[in-house]
Structures are given as C-alpha cells and as structure tokens.
C-alpha cells in the first residue's frame, strides 16, 4: 500500500511505545464528578437539574441552546451537589453540575437503542447524535451534529474517518481502533449515510499497522477504503488530512464541506454507533494518561467530569518533580495549573511531564524552518513579528487567521520563540478588531 501524506509538517519523537500495547481499561467512576456545562468554546448549555436533585446515568443535565453547542449528560447516577462555577481545563471557571456518585450507575429510563440503526434516515441519525451530545473527540470538540448536516448547496461525496492520532504520546485512539474496530466501521457507515456521501476512507498512519490489519480483518469488502499515511504531524488536522488523502485543499476560512468532505475521528465514529444503536449518550471517553510524570501510564475509559487528580491517582500518582500538567497531546494540549479540573469531552489525554527550564529565547534568525514546516504554508516568524510590533492588518493579510496552532513552527524553532503564543495573541487581537469594526458598521 502506498503511503500518502501532505507537504511540510514535522516528525517529533513519538513516545507511544509506553502505552500503545496497553488495552483500554475502564476506570471506575469516581465519587464525585463535575460536568461543565460548556466543554468547548461557544455558549454554555442551560442546566436542567437543580441542587439536591437525583440524576441517573446518561440523563440529560444540560440542554444545548445554540447551534454550536452540545447537550451534556450525567456520567454517573447520584445526587446533584451543586450547579456552580468550577475550574475548567480551558482556563475560566465555568458553571458545572457536580454529582455525588451513588455507585449504582442507574441508567436513565429514556436511554433506548434502535434495533436496526442502518435503516434510519439521515435526519434521525443527526437528531440522535445531537441528543447524545456527541462532539468531535479528537480534541477540538466541535459538535458532531453540525458536521453531519452540511448546507444543502455543499454536497458531500467522501467521509474520512481520522485514525491518525498524530499527536505524540497519545495512544487512546489507537486502542479504540484495535478494540472497537467493528463499532468504528458501523459508526462510519452511519456518518456516511447521514452526510449522504458515496465513500468512506479511513486514514491511518503507518506507525499503527496493527490497526490497519484489524480493520482489514473485519471489513466486509467495499464498505470502506483504508489509506495508509506516512507518520507525520499534524496529519490529523482536518485540512491536512483531506489534503493528504484526496489532494483537495479546503479554501481559506472554509470548512471540509466546501470540498465535499466530512471528517470524523475514530472515537467519534464509535460514539455515534453507541448512541444510535444503544441510545448511549456521550458520558465517557477514551484517553491516555501518560508522560514522564505518570507512574503507570495507561489507556483509560473515563467518565466525563472525573477530576484529573482521580485519573492520575488511578495511574499510580505522579512523580514529585512533575512540573507540567497537560490536557491533550504535547503539541496542542493545554497546560493546567491545577489537577482539580474535570475531564471533558475534548480530553484526549492527560499528560504529566517534567520539563527542564525553557531554553533561552534568541531573536529570530530567519532560518525559515517554520516556513518550511508550517502545514498551512504560513510564515510564522513574520506573523510573530507583525503581532509583536503591532502591525495587525499586515498579520491578517499574511493569513494569521489561517493558523491552526498545531505548534510545528514552535517545535522546530531553533531560537525557542513562543511562536504559537504570539500567533494566538495576534489572532485574538485581529478578531477583536474585526468585531469592533463590524460593530461600528452595524451602528
């Protein structure tokens, strides 16, 4: 099988051997879960329960109000302790429903599967997915229902199931592919039906050949194609994945719809199958707890709302000299200041790391490595300088808003400049200016 890939990008050390052979382990539900009502950017869901109320497993406790928002469900059964702001992995305190686990895992009565999921029509599938609060499990947590219902004028021809897991260290998706191969295939079929696409392609990087074999074993002919990809970061980023597999380029500021593609993570595909077949809402997810600081790295099935501390304790605790705690992968993950934050739908990994003092920052020597490696073909150093010296309109012209913050540039930068941080800063400022402008125009 020929290996496909996209231009540019980097190849950081993988560190996957620690956990890739470890089967997913279901972590026992903790005593207390805090389920934030907002798990991605957007507006928080409206709480449906009150303090003191009894809830059951899978019960909807937050109703999505806006388009780009998803419902949330109880991940344990028990009593609601509070509906109040808690620290959140994304930084700001966010209202969350805290539930004391009664240990019974009483399923909610409304949970009902459908006997023949593949016969459902697209609208129903979308509806179920929306009700189940499914979001993209790759990390960005984009509501899946939105992805499944593209605008009418943008016909979809291809569904890509993203099995790249290009982030170093993380192996949860890998394990999901090995252990839930059939579920993923079925979920993929549902996605294809819902989106009205003709074909399904599963993209897997060549460092996970066993997953390819697993798929080939269970696949009945023709239901999906498998494309082997050269291991490279950030292959899992939608735009690069589409470029790698189909050679299509998503237009600037556009979405995969614009080139007739829907991309779903393998975990999401499984979640869709679970939701449609068994009526199971998204209340748990697979994640990798690893890193130098974690004593026993593991792949885990964790209930949403479990505090990081509990997960880390389950993995034997962390080393004393741990000084970085990350939610997500090492390239795009968010550093956490406190282990009290809960696991959310987008938590693909919990990493504890011991990093040395950051290397001394030099001034940019224009080595152009960031230019050579940027998967979006931007000029990160120039963007950084435009932001630093406040030439925001130039930064916009040079495509700062196209940056996907994959971190390739900063990884490769010999001068150790916090490029991604600068670019994020610039993106925010540019967006702020734009908002201001449109507000002024609206006046």
């Amino acid at each position, binding site marked *: 099988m020929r290996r496909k890939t996209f231009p540019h990008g980097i190849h950081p050390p993988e560190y996957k051997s620690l956990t890739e052979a470890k089967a997913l382990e279901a972590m026992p539900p903790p005593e207390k879960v805090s389920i934030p009502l907002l798990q991605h950017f957007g507006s928080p869901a409206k709480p449906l329960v009150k303090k003191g109320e009894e809830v059951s497993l899978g019960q909807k406790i937050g109703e999505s109000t806006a388009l780009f928002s998803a419902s949330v469900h109880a991940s344990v059964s028990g009593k609601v302790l509070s509906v109040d702001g808690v620290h959140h992995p994304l930084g700001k305190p966010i209202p969350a429903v805290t539930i004391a686990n009664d240990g019974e895992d009483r399923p909610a009565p409304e949970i009902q599967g459908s006997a023949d999921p593949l016969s459902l029509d697209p609208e129903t599938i979308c509806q179920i997915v929306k009700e189940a609060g499914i979001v993209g499990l790759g990390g960005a947590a984009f509501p899946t229902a939105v992805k499944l219902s593209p605008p009418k004028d943008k016909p979809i021809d291809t569904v890509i199931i993203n099995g790249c897991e290009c982030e170093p260290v993380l192996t949860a998706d890998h394990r999901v592919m090995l252990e839930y191969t059939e579920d993923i295939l079925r979920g993929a079929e549902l996605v294809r039906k819902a989106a009205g696409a003709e074909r399904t392609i599963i993209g897997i990087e060549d460092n996970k050949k066993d997953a390819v074999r697993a798929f080939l074993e269970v696949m009945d002919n023709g239901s999906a194609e498998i494309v082997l990809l050269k291991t490279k970061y950030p292959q899992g980023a939608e735009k690069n994945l589409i470029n790698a597999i189909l050679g299509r380029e998503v237009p600037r500021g556009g979405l995969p719809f614009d080139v007739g593609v829907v991309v779903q993570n393998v975990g999401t595909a499984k979640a869709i199958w679970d939701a449609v077949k068994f009526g199971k809402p998204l209340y748990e997810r697979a994640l990798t707890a690893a890193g130098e600081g974690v004593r026993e790295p593991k792949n885990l099935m964790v209930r949403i709302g479990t505090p990081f501390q509990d997960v880390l304790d389950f993995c034997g605790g962390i080393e004393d000299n741990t000084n970085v705690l990350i939610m997500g992968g090492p390239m795009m993950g968010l550093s956490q200041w406190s282990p009290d934050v809960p696991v959310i739908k987008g938590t693909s990994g919990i990493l504890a790391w011991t990093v040395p003092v950051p290397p001394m920052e030099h*001034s940019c020597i224009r080595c152009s490595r960031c230019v050579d490696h940027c998967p979006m073909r931007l000029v990160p150093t*120039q963007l950084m*300088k*435009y932001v*630093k*010296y406040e*030439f925001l309109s130039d930064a916009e012209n040079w495509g700062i808003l196209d940056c996907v913050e994959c971190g390739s540039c900063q990884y490769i930068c010999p001068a150790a400049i916090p490029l991604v941080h600068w670019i994020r800063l610039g993106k925010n400022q540019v967006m702020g200016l734009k908002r201001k402008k449109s507000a002024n125009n609206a006046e």
Partner: protein
Amino acid sequence: MELIAIFISAVLVQNFVLYYFLGICPFLGVSKKIDSALSMGLAVTFVMSITAVVSWLINNLILIPYDLGYLQIVSFILVIASLVQLVEMFIRKISPPLYQALGIYLPLITTNCAIMGLALIAALNGYSFVETVIFGFGSGIGFTLAIVLMAGIREQLDLSDVPEPLKGAGIALIVAGIMALAFNGFIGMLT
C-alpha cells in the same frame, strides 16, 4: 548603445540618491511604506521626465543662443515649480486617493533637489535632446529603485530592535550608506 549606457548609469551607477545625494529629503521621508515609496518614486520619475524635456528646451532654445547661462537657475526652478504645482493640482483632481497617499510630499517635489539637480546635471553634461530624456527617465527610475528598496528595508526594520536614538532617519542613513557600498559593485560596468 550610448543611450542604454546613459540609462543604466543613471539607474545604477550614478544613482541620484546614492551617488549624487540628491532627493534625500523624500528618500528619508517617504520611505516608510513600500506603497507610498513606489507612488512617490513614480511621481518623481514622471516629473523628472517632463522636467528633462522642458529644461532642455529652455536651455538650448533660449539660454544658450542668447548667452544667458546665468539665468539657468532661475528659469529651471521656475519651470519646475510651476510643473510640480500643475501636477499636484492635476493629481488632486483626477485621483484623490493618490493625492492622499503622497500627502504633503507632492509639494515637496518642488524643493526636491533631485529634479533641479537633474536639469542642471543634464545641462552640464551637454546631453542631446534624446539623451536628456533618457537621462531624466533613468534618473527617475534610479530614484524609484533606491526609495523602494529603502522602503522594503525600513518595513523590515519596523519589526526590529533598532536602538532608540537611531530609529528613523539615523538607521535609514546608515542603510543608505551600506546600499551605496553595495551599488559600488556596478561602477565601471559601462566604461
């Protein structure tokens, strides 16, 4: 061949800015942004070409036949001043954005020594009519080249950590000095 030599010499070898030190004011003043530098360069090129023609006519049809060499200065500057004012009014009428872009520098073309210098040097070199036109045009292009290169460099310097007292004119002059060194490479290429 002679004409090409005059042209290339005016652009690269005896560049008005870097060799004759003419037009330093706009060279420093309007070289902060590439776009405005380009407009300024083109405006100067335009005015230079016209000046070359008109000053040649005056010099060869009036001043030399009547032995009025000493009226060169007054008559040239009068021509230039009126020309520039005409151009200014013209641009203001037909292209307000261009006028906005060049801002206060358009009137300054009057006192741009490059224009006056062009008329004088062309007269001094005793160029023929066609040579004068080529010389005027080439000098304008040379000015444009210098100012646009300078603007490119200064845009990059905007993103640099230049010591406070040197910011602006100081560093621009130093860059001009190094540019003059680099342009030295062209010396002797035409002879």
